[in-house]
């Protein structure tokens, strides 16, 4: 009987396992590739912010709004683009964040802005954890329905709780202390712009590090193959709940920034249309790519501003048309377009 024909070569020893060895460089090489477009967009946005600071006095207020929308878009992209959780009710966390600092200021006299951000993040995270437990039992359409349902309920509560929220009239008379006791909010919006930019920068750094970490990669893994992630040892449900809570906190911070910089909170921050809009922004930019979401937020907010100035009556039509065109020609979002542009400018690689 001949032995099976597979030949065994002498092989060099595997390196000796040493259990206490330093953890391998987990961060190195994560999220490589794809970085060209990210870098291009980062530079573009950075230059845009600088130019606005230097020359665009009349755009400072708009600039804050853009930065706030960017934070909000990031929070949604973490869910939709990375973890594969869909939501049509994320405005609830944005709104709850806004109302938290609003109510703290108007009813309790807590006007410190940075503590306000923490408060908003904490309240939104609590609500996120509580509703997340239920939302994450479902998937797809179920998630859409539940997130929408919770958002509608909170909207109606805010509408009815007039003594607390001011109801349909909004929360008037909000006061915000100078940032760090030094920088007062001015009427030109310079402080507001710099403040939101600083918070945006911190959130972006956090989100980039998080998505490149093994934790962030595991979210993508869960989106692509839940059973497999479980089989390599990830507690899927817990991890989804953690990112849902985190995303809620970031949305809460965005909402708080809006309240602080506009010193007013209205029911619109909880409205369904805001939930829809932010989802569109993420899709427009390119879901699953942080810099896509950021670019989407900028483009959408600027379009909205310009179009409503050019054609106050029918601007929603033009916005719709523009979005349709972009989706048709850039199915992977604006960042997909950037990818293609960069690839076209690069000489063909020979593998």
């Amino acid at each position, binding site marked *: 009987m001949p032995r099976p024909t597979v030949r065994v070569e002498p092989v060099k020893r595997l390196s000796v396992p040493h259990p206490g060895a330093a953890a391998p460089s987990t961060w190195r090489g994560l999220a490589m590739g794809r970085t060209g477009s990210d870098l291009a967009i980062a530079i573009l946005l950075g230059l845009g912010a600088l130019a606005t600071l230097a020359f665009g006095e009349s755009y400072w207020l708009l600039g804050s709004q853009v930065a706030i929308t960017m934070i909000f878009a990031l929070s949604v992209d973490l869910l939709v683009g990375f973890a594969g959780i869909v939501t049509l009710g994320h405005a609830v966390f944005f709104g709850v964040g806004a109302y938290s600092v609003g109510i703290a200021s108007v009813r309790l006299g807590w006007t410190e802005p940075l503590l306000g951000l923490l408060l908003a993040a904490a309240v939104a995270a609590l609500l996120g954890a509580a509703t997340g437990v239920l939302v994450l039992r479902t998937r797809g359409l179920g998630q859409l329905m539940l997130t929408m349902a919770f958002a509608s309920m909170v909207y109606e509560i805010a509408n009815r709780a007039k003594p607390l929220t001011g109801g349909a009239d909004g929360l008037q008379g909000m006061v915000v202390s100078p940032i760090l006791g030094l920088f007062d909010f001015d009427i030109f919006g310079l402080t507001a712009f710099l403040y939101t930019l600083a918070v945006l920068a911190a959130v972006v750094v956090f989100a980039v590090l998080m998505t490149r970490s093994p934790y962030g990669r*595991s979210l993508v893994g869960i989106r*692509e193959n839940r059973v497999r992630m479980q*089989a390599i*040892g990830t507690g899927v449900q817990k991890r989804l709940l953690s990112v849902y809570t985190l995303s809620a906190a970031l949305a809460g911070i965005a909402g708080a920034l809006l309240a602080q910089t506009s010193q007013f909170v209205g029911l619109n921050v909880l409205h369904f249309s805001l939930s829809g809009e932010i989802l569109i922004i993420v899709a427009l930019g390119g879901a699953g790519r942080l810099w896509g979401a950021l670019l989407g937020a900028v483009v959408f907010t600027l379009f909205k501003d310009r179009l409503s100035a050019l054609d106050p009556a029918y601007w929603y039509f033009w916005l719709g048309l523009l979005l349709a065109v972009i989706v048709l020609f850039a199915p992977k979002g604006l960042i997909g377009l950037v990818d293609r542009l960069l690839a076209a400018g690069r000489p063909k690689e020979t593998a």
Partner: protein
Amino acid sequence: MPDTRTDSTLSLTNVRAGYGATVVLEDLSFDLADGEKLSIIGRNGVGKTTLLATIMGLTRLHAGRIGLGALDIAALRPNRRAHAGLGFVPQQREIFPSLTVEENLLVGLRPGGWTLERVYDLFPRLQQRRTNMGNQLSGGEQQMLAFGRALLTNPRVLLLDEPFEGLAPVIVEQLFQALLRLRDESRLSIIMVEQHAKLALAFAPRTMVMSRGRVAFDGASRTLIDDPARLDALCGIGGGIGVAH
């Protein structure tokens, strides 16, 4: 001191399992010693894959005990079982398409003897492809990646489900070399489910033949290599072809 025997790493006792109400595995028992390698062969549809899925907790267990070391893992969820020391390389490989090779490897990383460097040492091809996306790999590369990903969870028992299925012969040869290296140089316990009897028998000193959800043979691979007629009888037409000539 209680008796903490570690010689049996994985033990299945009277396991009955399947999908929903359907029972695929009937009253199946076996033990796997620490560091032991076991091949499982059998005709199509006898429950080989279901057996691995059951060990992993992906099926419905109707009865029986599944022990991992001193721990009864039968009631644990799959992720807890992975933490307890099971590494599973599924038949479909199930690479994450939008993670790079390196990200695929690191996504399940748990500390232990297996490091990125050691996996690259075992599969140099993966190092060359480390920045490629999961969906840009050939079948063989995907299989290497699936191995590497499982190894980096630093399991005690590695479960391989038909690792050579659908691969070109030259790739099978390469992969098999890597597996032999793994067999000879690591203290991992390994269960390999395989269609090719030739490879299966050459891989492990012990082979189990399954038939209709039960163990039809469990013994030295040598016995079956030396007795092709018996192997044919156990595995049916085709099962023994690799050994017969």
